């Protein structure tokens, strides 16, 4: 990388040629104010707040867009620059109706901060006397046009990060407005409610309905963790205040998602209305009654201790930590020699022993084959990566049913029977990537194998921690008929009803480890209350095999405990020495997954 020497505010700096003045200044610890610029988005130079003086240039220059060359002499806070910035801020404050005392972003607003920094204490230009519209048609957040500064961050985020292209900036001059599609309400638009635009908006224009007015950022704690909704494993931050989860943010440093989340990761967990189970329950005289942990575990341990290994069955949800799966395997399969174990969701066919690609390969590819998987539905952030690649000219071939969510973006849509054709096309590409899922039948899978060595392969697993569950042998097919004692690790999984017990004899003893009350827990003899995503630490394995940490942000509700902790306590009750610290468990679990 060629380095050049420049001078900023008299300070000599050496930086890579071609990076922007803003980046060079940031690297040297010099703060140039910005508004429309965002590290995750390409610069557009819309707001002009970042203007600086560059020797030899006729006018002031926007630092966020100007690439550096050798010998540049730059002033970032000269009187001329400050005057220009004040003028720009005066105009920005007059362009819409900014009344900070009514705004939920007050204290965290980038525009307000600039106002303070440059002493904007009154309106120089008249403001609007009429209000701009507010669009509250979306479920999770609203658009308050009165506070929009037309920086276009939201539009760029929607277009380039999510590749959803819902947002646009219509008209021009004073009539400019952010709109959705061909000026639909946001609720009726093509928006997928990923909330990426919400996260990048520098002002109070895009407003989260749930966390608005619940406190400033400095009053909150941020805990980095991994989303446990699907197998992509997006990095995110849980924002809490006083022990309550306020909102979820995408983590810009996220290895897989780079800051983007989907509706299921960002919003849905905060709107879960299911009833929590807050204490262990034991069936007595036909009714489930609260008990303490000791009693409940005792009952389970006793039952398991007496039972014949052949009559015990274990069913696990994939939405549990590596540590829980490790202990479940260790306790039941290894110690108690239980062979009848199963997973609540299907796993993708295993093509190769070793991983042959990662999600990062999607964006490097020129042809993407999606076979028997629907990431739009099941792994939304992976679908964003695919759509981003299509935007850049990558060819998408969908081999799946008519209703596949990626079909509208595909250059070719083929039925399973034509897999051969797809394989042929991918074979001619430079960097093909194959994304396959549970929908791919064996014949198709074998056809895909022809591309080994040529293509990158990524299984798009259903569920969350399916990859780890498979590694621990939980996806072997479960035979309900022989089961007289069932340990069901249901966790917080939704959408699993009593049909999970189909085929299990009437008198069977059923232990359910679950977070929420459901018709299924109603059937149990013992219910062990489990902590949910925000209340437990541990790790998850994503669909590529990447092991990522999850961290507890708030205390478990009632007496609920982390998934692995419950199994560890149960083992202890059965006098099996599995107990270890979380770190140790994580290390052992990870070893098994690799």
């Amino acid at each position, binding site marked *: 990388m060629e380095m050049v020497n420049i001078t900023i505010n008299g300070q000599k700096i050496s930086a890579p040629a071609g990076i922007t003045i803003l980046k060079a200044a940031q690297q040297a610890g010099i703060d140039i104010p910005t508004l429309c610029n965002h590290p995750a988005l390409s610069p557009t130079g819309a707001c002009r707040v970042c203007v600086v003086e560059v020797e030899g240039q006729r006018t002031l220059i926007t630092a966020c867009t100007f690439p550096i060359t050798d010998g540049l002499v730059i002033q970032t806070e000269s009187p001329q620059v400050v005057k220009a910035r004040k003028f720009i801020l005066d105009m920005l404050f007059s362009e819409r109706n900014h009344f900070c005392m009514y705004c939920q972003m007050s204290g965290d607003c980038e525009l307000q901060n600039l106002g303070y920094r440059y002493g904007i204490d009154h309106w120089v230009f008249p403001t609007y006397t009429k209000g701009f519209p507010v669009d509250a048609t979306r479920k999770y957040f609203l658009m308050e046009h009165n506070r929009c500064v037309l920086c276009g961050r939201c539009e760029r985020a929607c277009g380039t990060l999510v590749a959803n292209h819902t947002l*646009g900036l*219509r008209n021009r001059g004073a009539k400019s407005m952010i709109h959705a*599609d061909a*000026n639909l309400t946001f609720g009726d638009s093509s928006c997928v409610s990923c909330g990426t635009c919400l996260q990048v908006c520098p002002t109070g224009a895009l407003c989260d309905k749930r966390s608005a007015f619940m406190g400033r950022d400095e009053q909150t704690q941020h805990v980095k963790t991994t989303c446990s909704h699907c197998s992509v494993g997006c990095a995110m931050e849980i924002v809490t205040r006083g022990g309550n989860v306020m909102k979820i943010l995408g983590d810009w440093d996220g290895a897989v998602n780079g800051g983007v989340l989907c509706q299921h990761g960002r919003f849905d967990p905060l709107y879960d209305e299911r009833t929590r189970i807050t204490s262990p329950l034991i069936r007595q005289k036909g009714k489930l009654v609260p008990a303490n942990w000791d009693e409940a575990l005792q009952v389970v341990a006793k039952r398991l201790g007496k039972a014949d290994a052949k009559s015990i069955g274990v069913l696990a949800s994939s939405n549990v930590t590596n540590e829980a799966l490790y202990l479940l395997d260790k306790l039941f399969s290894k110690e108690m020699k239980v062979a009848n174990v199963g997973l609540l969701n299907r796993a993708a066919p295993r093509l190769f022993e070793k991983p042959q690609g990662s999600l990062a390969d999607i964006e490097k590819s020129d042809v993407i084959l999606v076979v028997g998987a629907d990431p739009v539905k099941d792994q939304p952030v992976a679908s964003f990566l695919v759509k981003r690649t299509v935007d850049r000219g990558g060819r998408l071939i969908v081999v799946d049913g008519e209703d596949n969510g990626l079909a509208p973006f595909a250059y070719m849509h083929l039925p399973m029977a034509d897999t051969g054709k797809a394989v042929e096309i991918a074979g001619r590409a430079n960097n093909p990537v194959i994304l396959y899922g549970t929908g791919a039948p064996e014949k198709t899978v074998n056809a895909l194998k022809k591309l080994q060595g040529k293509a990158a392969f990524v299984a798009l697993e259903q569920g969350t921690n399916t990859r780890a569950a498979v590694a621990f042998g939980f996806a072997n097919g479960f035979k309900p008929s022989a089961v007289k004692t069932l340990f069901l690790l249901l966790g917080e999984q939704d959408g699993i009803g009593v049909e999970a017990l189909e085929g299990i004899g009437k008198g069977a003893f059923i232990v359910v480890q679950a977070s929420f009350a459901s018709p299924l827990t109603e059937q149990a003899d013992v219910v062990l209350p489990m902590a949910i995503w925000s209340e437990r630490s541990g790790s998850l394995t994503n669909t590529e095999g990447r092991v990522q940490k999850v961290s507890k942000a708030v205390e478990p509700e009632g007496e609920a405990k982390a998934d692995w902790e419950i199994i560890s306590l149960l083992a202890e009750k059965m006098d099996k020495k599995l107990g270890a610290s979380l770190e140790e468990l994580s290390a052992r679990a990870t070893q098994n997954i690799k």
Partner: protein
Amino acid sequence: MKKAQTMDKKVKDIIKKYYGDKTAMIAILQDVQEEFRYLPKETLSFISKKMDVPLTRIYEIATFYNAFSLKPRGKHTIEVCLGTACHVQGASRLIDRLERDLSISSGDTTKDKMFTLEEVRCLGCCSLAPVIRISGNVHPYLTQDELPKILRNYK
């Protein structure tokens, strides 16, 4: 059904004329506007699908330029010049009169879809001020009393 088909067909031909080139979007929209005298919403969605350009982007272009209209327009466009020379010569009276006679305000289209009334800045023939242009024909040195007769000729 029939109407939609012919509309799609016409737009398809226009796109073909430009080899579906995304960078020719403005030219394509201009041709569509010429064909239908405005940009019907369905044509925008159609172009979006056919050319793989997000609808929101097409909408940005269609609203950025004054030349494009998203509302149906009359058979004839009346452009009243309000440039400096025409303004000095009393062009605002012309627009007042037209608004009154046609019962619409500037920018709108008459109910019978005959006329769309528009203000423009300088038609480039200031020596003829005040002027209006109807469907491309320049009418020079106007007084408002002459307007009804001129409009009748276009009906």
